[in-house]
C-alpha cells in the first residue's frame, strides 16, 4: 500500500523541518557565538559580556 502525499502534506513537512532547524537546542549557542564575533568586530564590551552571560545562562538548560 502506498500512501499518496498531497501538496499540503509536503508543505507541512517542510514547515516542520524549518521549525525544527530554527528551534534546535544547538541554535541559541550558535546565535550567541555569532553575537560574540560581532562584539569583537565592533569592540563592544557590553555586548561581549551580555553574550558570555547568555551562554552561561543557556548552559544551565535542562536544570530547574
Amino acid at each position, binding site marked *: 500500500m502506498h500512501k499518496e502525499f498531497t501538496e499540503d502534506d509536503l508543505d507541512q513537512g517542510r514547515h516542520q523541518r524549518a521549525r525544527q532547524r530554527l528551534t534546535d537546542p544547538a541554535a541559541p549557542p550558535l546565535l550567541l557565538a555569532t553575537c560574540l564575533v560581532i562584539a569583537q568586530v565592533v569592540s563592544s564590551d557590553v555586548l561581549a559580556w551580555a553574550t558570555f552571560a547568555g551562554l*552561561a545562562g543557556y548552559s544551565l538548560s535542562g536544570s530547574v
Partner: protein
Amino acid sequence: VLASPVWRASNRQGFILTLFAAGLVAGGLTTATGAWLVSGLFQPVPLTVRSVALFVLAVVAALQDLGWIHLALPQASRQIPQTLFRRRLVSAALQFGFELGTGLRTYLPSALPYLLLSAVILFGQNPWLAAAAGAGFGLGRAMMPLVWYASKSAEWWDKQLMLRTRYLALTSAVAGIVCMATVVASAMVR
C-alpha cells in the same frame, strides 16, 4: 527534569513564559548587582593577579564542563519547592523566574555561571558591564523554555537536548576561555 509546571502550563503559555523570562532577568540583575558591589573590594588587586586568577578559573571551568575533572562546586542542592506552584500562576512564574535567575536557589550543572560571577567580581567594576552580565544571564536562561515552546514539539526538543549535551559542554568550555581572554585583553587596553 524539564517538566516545570510553570512553563508547561497549558493555558496562556506565551504570557506566562514572558513573565518567567522577566523574572529571570530580574534575578540575574540582582545577583549581578551584588557581585558588582563586591567587585569594588578587588579593584586594588593588581590587574595581572586578577587576570591570572580569571585565566586559571576559565581553564578549571572548561575542564569541569568537559567532564575531565569533577569538583564539588558550591550550589543549593535542592529543587525549587512544589509549594511555589500552588499559588497563582502569574506570581509563581515571576517568583520561579526570579529565583532561577539569581543562580543561587537550585542546582547549577555547568561551571560557566561560576566563571561569569568570578569575572564580574574581578573585572566588573563598570556597572554597565555588570548589568549586561546579569541581564544576559537571565535572557540566556530564558532561551531554553522559549525555544522549547517555539518548537511546538516538546518530546522532540527534549530528545535533541539530550543528544546535544556534549556539544553544549564543548561550546561552554571554548566560549568560557575565549570570553575571559577578551575580558582580560579589554581590561588591559583600558
